């Protein structure tokens, strides 16, 4: 089995953070963890090419890196693509997820990587690819590579991959039909018995977990701050120019309010199927409180109102989409020099 392996500058032996800007290098054969990978894949497996890239370079040139990897992997006649494992390294995880998912989609060969649950690459790519739960500790390298190898070999042989807990990968959010012995009611009652008896049981629908987000520091001087209004209540200009869906929206829009001191119902509409929208349609300030914020700007209570408000529709959105929208909106506002945000949620 011919394998191509992706590593960052640290695991590829180039150096630490000081080498994070390193451009991609291509080596014949296995490097660092690649040697162990060959071992655990077993007889006949050979890492034919290793691509090593600095984490910063990868983060800043992800498209270029992806293309290079697609080209090299195709040229190497690879039957398997492996990246990492990346443990907690965020930039490494995001790059590995991106290249694995591109290889799987474009070249139609198995690809697998490994990351800690907290790695931002998990949220971005776990639906597309198999990411083995590596934990945070790089000393578990062999154990992680063994799990990655087991999944890779099964994919190569076209065998079915078992449940996340059995195979050690991070749940992809895929539902699959299966026959079970007991009805839902029976399983539920059994769980309830176990719960009341203080015994262990496993929920079939684990609740999503939310890792705490560190709070930004307070705004020291509001009278000099640039404040933006964001809403998930679906307020858009008449005609909904960005086609923001009223249900499970996948995008957001930014709408000009420079020189406007009061939002008028006749100029706007609501794209949101989750609440009675008549009141906001009557007076959009009930959702995007521009009228009072303009007065507070006039009185210099706030420095400046950002000249665009941002809207999306927060209804039945998968968590992964919501997180992406949040990241994109935050980046946009950061780029515009916004100091503080009022988010209004219906």
């Amino acid at each position, binding site marked *: 089995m011919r394998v191509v392996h992706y590593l960052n500058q640290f695991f590829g032996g180039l150096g630490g953070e000081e080498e994070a800007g390193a451009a991609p290098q291509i080596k014949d054969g296995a490097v660092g963890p690649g040697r162990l990978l060959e071992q655990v894949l077993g007889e006949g497996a050979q890492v034919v090419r290793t691509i090593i890239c600095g984490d910063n370079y990868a983060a800043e040139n992800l498209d270029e890196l992806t293309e290079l990897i697609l080209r090299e992997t195709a040229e190497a006649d690879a039957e398997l693509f492996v990246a990492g494992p990346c443990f907690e390294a965020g930039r490494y995880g995001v790059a590995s997820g991106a290249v694995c998912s591109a290889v799987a989609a474009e070249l139609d060969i198995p690809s697998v990587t490994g990351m800690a649950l907290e790695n931002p690459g998990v949220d971005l790519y776990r639906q597309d690819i198999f990411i083995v739960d590596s934990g945070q500790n790089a000393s578990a390298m062999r154990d992680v590579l063994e799990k990655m190898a087991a999944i890779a070999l099964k994919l190569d042989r076209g065998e079915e991959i078992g449940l996340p807990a059995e195979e050690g990968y991070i749940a992809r959010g895929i539902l699959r039909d299966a026959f079970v012995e007991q009805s839902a009611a029976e399983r539920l009652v059994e769980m309830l018995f176990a719960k009341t008896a203080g015994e262990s049981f496993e929920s079939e629908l684990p609740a999503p977990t939310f890792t705490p987000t560190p709070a930004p520091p307070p705004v020291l001087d509001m009278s000099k701050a640039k404040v933006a209004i964001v809403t998930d209540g679906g307020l858009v200009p008449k005609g909904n120019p960005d086609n923001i869906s009223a249900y499970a929206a996948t995008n957001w829009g930014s709408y000009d309010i420079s020189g406007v001191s009061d939002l008028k119902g006749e100029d706007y509409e609501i794209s949101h199927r989750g609440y009675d929208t008549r009141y*906001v349609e009557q007076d959009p300030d009930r959702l995007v409180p521009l009228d009072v914020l303009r007065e507070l700007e006039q009185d210099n209570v706030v420095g400046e109102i950002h000249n665009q408000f941002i809207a999306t529709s927060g209804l039945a959105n998968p968590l992964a989409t919501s997180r992406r929208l949040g990241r994109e909106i935050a980046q946009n506002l950061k780029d515009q020099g916004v100091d503080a945000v009022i988010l209004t949620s219906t």
Partner: protein
Amino acid sequence: MCQVTSVVPVAKMVGSNRVVQGQGIVHVLGNADLPPEEEKELRRKTVLQALEALKSEAGGSQG
């Protein structure tokens, strides 16, 4: 960021650090039952609460 919402438990569950109680799902920053002037005053109060939260160390919710 300060989130103004009528469903404070959801905001807290997802980890919002600064949360202000809104006036209802159908009009987070208003109240259609009030005369326009009073409604605007209520909106002003809610917005000022949000600005106050943004000026304060996070960890609690206002209102």
